[in-house]
């Protein structure tokens, strides 16, 4: 009786092993298929972004030539209309660029080029670049402090992108007459790290969405009728760029009570 059951056990185990092996093989094939499909999707996004960019750039150039009166004077209405073509085109271009940056990040094609620079100068530059957009909504953008901070050793362009995204969002999600600020400090637990805060008095984000907003394509309001448009990639890219710096990014916010986005990066990582 015992020998009998042993035999059955052996056969059983062998059979189960075989089916496990089969399952593992199937899973492996599925993973490979998914990876291949992912690579295809990435390639597609990269190609389509590039191919969209070319005609769009031409459209913008034509419109600028008209707008600037290089082909003859325009009346005020005509100029307004052509100016609309330029800014619409530029907005579209920004979105395409965001997709391209995301694709390059997803393909691990982004590398850091570190230089030493002043974070306050960078913040002030991004502030200036966004001034016109903010003024349209009667928003103020202030830098509250930072004059005593040492220079950072980091990728200036990439942090400019991060700040641009955070400030761009603050402008987008803060109603007229609101405030946007940037505050910087050394991290309380580790003075070799810099914390940058971009805060706003806008609509805020409910706690259950604090993680979600950093995910690619994620938007709190994703309905086609939503009042704000975008790719949902801005914060996913910002996170990628901050993490490339061995930093972290997070948000503190409550619905209806404004948002404060923070990122923390090493001030001066070992140079190698």
């Amino acid at each position, binding site marked *: 009786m015992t020998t009998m059951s042993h035999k059955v056990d052996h056969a059983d185990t062998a059979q189960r092993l075989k089916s496990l092996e089969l399952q593992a093989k199937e899973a492996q094939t599925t993973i490979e298929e998914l990876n291949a499909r992912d690579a295809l999707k990435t390639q597609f996004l990269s190609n389509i972004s590039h191919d969209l960019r070319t005609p769009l750039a*031409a459209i913008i150039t034509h419109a600028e030539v008209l707008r600037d009166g290089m082909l003859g004077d325009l009346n005020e209405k005509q100029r307004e209309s052509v100016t609309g073509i330029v800014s619409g085109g530029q907005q579209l271009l920004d979105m395409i660029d965001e997709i391209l940056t995301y694709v390059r990040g997803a393909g691990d094609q982004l590398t850091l080029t570190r230089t030493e620079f002043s974070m306050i100068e960078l913040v002030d530059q991004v502030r200036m670049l966004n001034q016109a957009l903010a003024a349209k909504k009667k928003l103020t953008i202030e830098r509250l402090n930072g004059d005593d901070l040492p220079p950072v050793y980091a990728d200036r362009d990439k942090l400019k992108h991060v700040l641009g995204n955070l400030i761009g969002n603050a402008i987008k999600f803060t109603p007229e007459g609101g405030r946007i600020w940037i505050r910087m400090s050394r991290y309380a637990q580790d003075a070799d790290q810099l914390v940058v805060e971009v805060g706003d008095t806008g609509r805020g984000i409910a706690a259950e969405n604090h993680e979600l907003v950093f995910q690619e394509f994620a938007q709190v309001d994703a309905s086609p009728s939503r009042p704000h448009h975008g790719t949902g990639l801005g914060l996913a890219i910002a996170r990628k760029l901050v993490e490339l710096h061995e930093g972290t990014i997070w948000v503190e916010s409550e619905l209806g009570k404004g948002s404060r986005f923070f990122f923390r990066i090493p001030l001066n990582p070992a140079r190698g």
Partner: protein
Amino acid sequence: MGARILVVDDSTLVTDAFEILFRAAGYDVTTAGTVAEAVGHGRASSIDIMLLDLSLPDGDGLEVLEMLEANGRLPRATLAMTGHDDPKIRQRCLDAGCADVLLKPLPIGEILRHIERHLA
């Protein structure tokens, strides 16, 4: 007569737009869509400024520079145009003899300013 500009880009949408822009700004403009065409124009007449796209159907845009140099017909200044803000690409262009590398697309005011600066 105004300075002569050669615009090299594989998209006629782009070369058409630049042609209109530069004509309106008073320059003499020629366009090319391939390495071979660009080299042909460069050999036939002396170019003051060449705006050079890097990816052309029959080769790398920088080959144009190489071939014109071999013929002693380098433009006074070549401005490379690229869609990628990549320090490696930038360096490759400068090493090949480009005077500057412009990130596409640039507002027309800035393009014209770059050209004036290199003509001065």
